[in-house]
């Protein structure tokens, strides 16, 4: 499906921003978007006119279209409907969430459509893929996509699904902190113990790695998939809103547009406070106070110390997680050779100071903490596709972030593969029947850190069916639990006595079912067909416009001569030349929309030119009245 020389890309699919990178001439580089930016906001919108928007353009219109703008989808991906995180999100997000068809996953209402979260993320991925295709001038179909190290199986699987929907073969789901370490160590020969402290828009991750001989050996990972810049902003929003409510008796959070303006202002103020001590917040006409009364304004100043006070416990949570992870790795803060700061939130001075206090050393930060993850993904993508492993190349040994186990009698959780086990890995477990002639065994597989099954994340239920009839305890079924290098779980089973493989039925508890995914992929194939038809249409326009333009050009000298003789002036000729210029560039790049808008004017100009070239009494030459198309 893809030739081997085709470029491979690394994508950092972030909570607030995403980026795409590739290894070019031996070094990883960010691929700019078609509008020239390094970062693309992870925002998807359905505009009022029904157009689907992604990235900057979607973010810009968020203010006027809060219900139709989806952001921070990463916080919902692979989550179960009814989970604490989803309930939390429903209470603060301006767009509306509904339960999936099985009532298990989360769907987003966008206009009259209901989209799964992987489909939303796929739109962002497709945008980045298109950026890369324009950059390389050829198709791109293989990618490494990063996720927070602390993502569980459901979240990884859903991210991989998003990649497939975007038409990408996902070579690897890579952990973000590991990715940052890869980018950091690229082209150097490191021999040290590195801690990656990654505080991004929505998630916090910490990883301990031993780097030696080009092998990046992850010792332990930890994190919190619900702690990031969004939470810092929310503290600011709540603080501003409560102060406002105390003064005016109205809560601005109740109004979607006011909430969106507050959100933007909070983010801007939080970023500004990383370099200055005070940030002014002006939100005029924030809340409509009702008929006949003037609108209310929010005018205040947020100081850095106030921000730090509001978010102190969030920073403390990061440090607690860090301490726990170091304990898991059996490493003391003083034994760490380098602390790598990743994610936009690490720009906050209080975060840097907390890291310094904890490790007793300054954290090191690349030039762009927001870009380093995508760069690392590009490095890994390149390593996974190079035809022959060479000396320069690296090897990544990652670990599974959560205990994997099953539910046993009494609702307890029995760990089968403990967390921080190097992947790929597998473990077998023998089950016996507990009743005579038992035909099936139901096994609930979970991930998490609690002894109680109910407090862990269910991955799925596996039903072993068609077990041969025998007295209880006589049938032994060996179940193999596998975790791939992506951190994704697979289960298989066989009857120990007969050696026969058991069929396993998987009931996914989150994300898309295989059938639904296929349906979405089919739909997308339909979209592709439409796109291909559209490109045929563009071709037709190109050739038609080309013919028209050539004829106009031929007639132009005669037309100019006639006008000059008549003493009318060369306005019409100048406009016709400008039109021709625009048409030529549109033909060259194959800009279908521009061609469509130019078509009619070209036709009119041609008629005019024909008329003028034939005789001089043909009106005033209204050849180019329009503004630039496209």
């Amino acid at each position: 499906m893809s030739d081997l020389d085709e470029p491979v890309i690394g994508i950092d699919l972030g909570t607030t921003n995403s980026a795409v990178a590739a290894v070019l001439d031996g070094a990883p580089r960010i691929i700019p978007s078609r509008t020239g930016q390094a970062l693309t906001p992870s925002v998807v919108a359905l505009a009022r006119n029904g157009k689907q928007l992604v990235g900057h353009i979607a973010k810009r219109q968020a203010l006027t279209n809060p219900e139709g703008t989806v952001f921070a989808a990463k916080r919902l991906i692979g989550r179960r409907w009814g989970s604490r995180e989803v309930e939390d999100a429903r209470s603060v997000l301006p767009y509306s969430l509904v339960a999936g068809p099985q009532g298990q996953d989360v769907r987003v209402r966008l206009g009259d459509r209901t989209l799964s979260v992987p489909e939303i993320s796929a739109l962002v991925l497709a945008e980045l893929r298109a950026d890369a295709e324009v950059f390389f001038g050829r198709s791109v179909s293989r990618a490494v996509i990063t996720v927070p190290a602390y993502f569980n199986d459901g979240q990884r699987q859903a991210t991989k699904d998003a990649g497939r929907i975007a038409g990408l073969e996902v070579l690897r789901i890579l952990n973000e902190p590991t990715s940052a370490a890869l980018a950091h160590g690229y082209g150097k020969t490191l021999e040290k113990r590195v801690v990656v402290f990654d505080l991004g828009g929505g998630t916090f991750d910490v990883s301990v790695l031993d780097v030696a001989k080009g092998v990046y050996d992850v010792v332990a990972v930890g994190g919190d998939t619900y702690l990031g810049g969004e939470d810092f902003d929310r503290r600011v929003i709540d603080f501003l809103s409560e102060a406002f409510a105390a003064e005016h008796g109205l809560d601005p959070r109740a109004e979607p547009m006011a909430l969106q303006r507050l959100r933007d202002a909070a983010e801007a103020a939080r970023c500004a406070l990383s370099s200055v001590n005070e940030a002014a917040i002006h939100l005029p006409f924030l809340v409509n106070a009702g008929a006949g009364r003037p609108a209310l304004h929010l005018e205040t100043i947020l100081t850095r110390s106030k921000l730090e006070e509001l978010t102190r416990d969030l920073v403390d949570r990061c440090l607690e997680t860090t301490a726990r992870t170091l304990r898991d790795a059996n490493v003391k803060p003083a034994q760490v050779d380098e602390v790598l700061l990743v994610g936009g939130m690490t720009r906050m001075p209080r975060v840097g100071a907390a890291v310094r206090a904890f490790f007793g050393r300054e954290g090191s930060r690349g030039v762009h903490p927001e870009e380093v993850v995508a760069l690392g993904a590009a490095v890994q993508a390149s390593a996974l596709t190079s035809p022959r492993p060479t000396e320069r190349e690296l090897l990544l040994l990652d670990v599974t972030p959560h205990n994997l186990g099953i539910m046993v009698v009494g609702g307890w959780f029995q760990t089968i593969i403990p967390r921080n086990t190097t992947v790929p890995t597998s473990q077998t477990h023998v089950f016996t029947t507990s009743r005579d002639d038992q035909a099936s065994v139901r096994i609930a597989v979970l991930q998490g850190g609690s002894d109680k099954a109910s407090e862990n994340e269910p991955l799925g239920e596996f039903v072993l069916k068609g077990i041969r009839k025998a007295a209880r305890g006589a049938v032994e079924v060996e179940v193999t639990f596998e975790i791939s290098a992506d951190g994704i779980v697979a289960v298989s089973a066989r009857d120990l006595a007969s050696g026969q493989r058991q069929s396993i039925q998987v009931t996914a508890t989150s994300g898309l079912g295989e059938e639904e995914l296929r349906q979405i992929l089919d739909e997308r194939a339909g979209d592709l067909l439409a796109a291909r038809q559209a490109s045929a249409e563009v071709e037709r326009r190109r050739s038609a416009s080309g013919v028209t333009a050539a004829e106009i050009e031929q007639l132009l000298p005669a037309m100019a001569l006639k006008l000059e003789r008549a003493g009318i002036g060369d306005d019409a000729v100048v406009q016709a030349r400008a039109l021709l210029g625009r048409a030529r560039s549109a033909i060259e790049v194959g800009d279908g929309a521009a061609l469509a808008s130019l078509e009619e004017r070209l036709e009119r100009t041609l008629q005019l030119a024909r008329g003028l070239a034939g005789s001089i009494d043909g009106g005033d030459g209204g050849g180019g009245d329009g503004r630039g198309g496209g």
Partner: protein
Amino acid sequence: MPGAPPTQRSSVSSPQATGEVDLTAEEQRTLRELDARLPGLTHWDVLGISWNAPVDAARAAYLDRARELHPDRHAGRRLGPFLPILERLFRAATAAREVLCDEGRRATYARETAPPDELSRAESVRRSEAARSAERRARLARATPLVARATRVQELLRRGKEAMAEGRFGQASADLLTAAGLDPHHAEAGALASEAKRRAGGERARDRHQEGLRAEAAGQGAAALELYREALAADPANPRHAIAAARAALGLGQHAEATELARAAVAQAPGFARAHEALGEALTAEGRTKEALRALERALELDPALKGVRALARKLRWSFLG
């Protein structure tokens, strides 16, 4: 495409179908051999290091192994049947790393997997070390009297305890008393010594008493009296020795002596009827009727079943009245 879910595997070129593998014949042979030998290999073998190699060596070896065996290092190659082999070998290497890169687990594993000649070598080392330390102690003891005394006390204490456990109380008491004498502040030695002494006395007294009974039966009253006296000296707390001695004295006609011994028995065990009986008999022989009657009545009070006592008392009462 290692690690990809089965759904994606089908979209990549399938080497199983073509049977072609992008590995050299040499690589294929090495992997096959290693895989076949895997069940019998120790963690040391898997990493290719010698038994008891240090953690650093194990770590370095693991990194090398990972670079050879991790499926990612072969990404993009057709591996066919070698993919599961690589995965199996990589897992074995990781399992070896888990043990050998952890100081505690490594040490335990090294003991468990020590080669036989290593085991005997370790044993002989242990023995010669034990012998050397004993010699060192002896040398030290010769050099300083204080250490010598402490060593001697320890030795006596050990032997004494042993003897006590085996019921040789005489031996135990001798050793323990010596120990207590050498080190008067040694609380354990003192306590054990008095216990051993008490038990040893009881033992000796029992022996003498038996001999006394035999002598008496043989009609050697004087010898019997002497033996009973010895038994009494060895175990003064037991009234039976005194009573037996009093009877023997009575038989020899030494009435005053008998009374004295019987009084000692009564003093030792005022609630023992036989002691009062013996005293009554002795006093009767001395002709101290009133006192004898009081002793006999006391004996009857304690044990009304004593027929001889009742008869003697009746006779005394009548003679007293008459």
